[in-house]
Structures are given as C-alpha cells and as structure tokens.
C-alpha cells in the first residue's frame, strides 16, 4: 500500500468516526440561599429555566429586570422559571435594588461566585436557557434591547417542543 492510499484510509476512518450529532451539555447543578430559604436546581427539573447572573453595580443587568419580569408574567401558565443569581459581595446593595422592583421570580445569592464559575460566566449580565431535560441550550452575554424579541421567540419555541 502506498502512502497516498494509506492517507486516504486514515481520512476515511476519521470521517466515519465523526459523531453524527452533537448533544447539548448538562447544566451544572447548584444549591444557593435565597431570601426565603434555599433554592436547588434539582427542584426545577422538567421545566424550562432561564438563569440570569447579575449584580447591582452593573447597569445592563438592572436594565434586564423589567424584561425578565414581563417574560415571567407572559409565560406564567407554562413550565417556565426564571432564577436571578446575584453576585454582589455586599448583599445589602442587591437587596436595595430588589426592593425597588416588583420581582416575580426567585433571586438567589452567590457572593463567592461559585456557581458563576461553574457556568463559566464571561460578562455581566450572563444568562442561560436550560431545557426540560436539564441541558444547557443557549448562553447570552450582555443585555440588549434589540435581542429581546429573539430571546422571547426562543423561549416560546423551547416551551412548544415539550
């Protein structure tokens, strides 16, 4: 067998071994304190979850709250949950902002950013959509008004699939 044939054979083996489809990774599990107690991600299995990492000093994070409140209201009759994970080192600063909003979803506190590290947060705010099978579907960094409709459409589509 000459070199060219050998190379062709190796290439063919490599092509055959490429996975037919790429599956979504499982979202890391967490347990965090909230104002009322402890929130565990396993309690929310079977639902579509929108996780938002935010801090009171981050302006785009604060800007995203009215949209998240509206989304929770819009999909209140669906298996959809929003969890806002606060990364402020000083909890009082977060509480001051929370008090100024009519938040209709749980806010968890992660001052040491352990869960943020697990999720590989790269900017503030960072949001993740976790599907009903607990798989990490989409990740968003930052919050822009122009992407609001697209996000809403994605949530709606993922809710329809199940």
């Amino acid at each position, binding site marked *: 067998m000459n070199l060219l044939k050998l190379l062709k054979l190796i290439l063919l083996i490599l092509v055959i071994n490429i996975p037919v489809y790429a599956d979504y990774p499982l979202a890391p599990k967490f347990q965090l304190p909230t104002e009322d107690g402890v929130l565990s991600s396993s309690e929310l299995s079977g639902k579509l979850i929108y996780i938002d990492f935010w*801090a009171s000093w*981050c302006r785009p994070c604060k800007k995203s709250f009215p949209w998240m409140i509206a989304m929770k209201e819009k999909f209140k009759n669906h298996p959809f949950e929003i969890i806002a994970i606060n990364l402020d080192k000083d909890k009082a600063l977060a509480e001051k902002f929370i008090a100024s909003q009519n938040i209709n979803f749980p806010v968890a506190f992660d001052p040491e*950013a352990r869960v*943020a*590290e697990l999720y590989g947060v790269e*900017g503030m705010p*960072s949001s993740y959509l976790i599907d009903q099978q607990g798989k990490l579907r989409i990740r968003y*960094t930052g919050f822009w008004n122009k992407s609001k409709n697209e996000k809403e459409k994605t949530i709606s589509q993922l809710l329809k699939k199940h």
Partner: protein
Amino acid sequence: MYKIFLLLSLLLLSACTTVQPWDKDLLAKPSMALVPNEIDNALDEHIYFSKEASMGGQGVGGGGCGCN
C-alpha cells in the same frame, strides 16, 4: 544580560491575571470613571486648548462592567 532581562520579564508576567466579571464592581463605581467630573474636565480641556492650541487625545474606549 539579555537572558537576565528575559527571565525578569517572564517573572513579571506571573503578576498578570484576568479580572473575573463579578470582580469588576470597584471598576464600575462612578469615582473610577476616566472622567469622574464632566464640568471639571470641560474646564481643563478649555484651558489646555487655550494654552496649547490643540485638543483631544484623551479618550479611551471600553471600561466598566466588561459586558460590552
């Protein structure tokens, strides 16, 4: 001499680290802005322009919470 300089440069690199997004709270404070006082800055720029007959060159892009 060159090797010592290179070694020292490599040692200094160990001080470089990535600031995590959640650690940028101090950078996001208004007092950390490049121009903390707009009025004061406008006055300074006016004096600079009057003295030097040139202006600008002070702007820097980016900064803040690391989300843009």
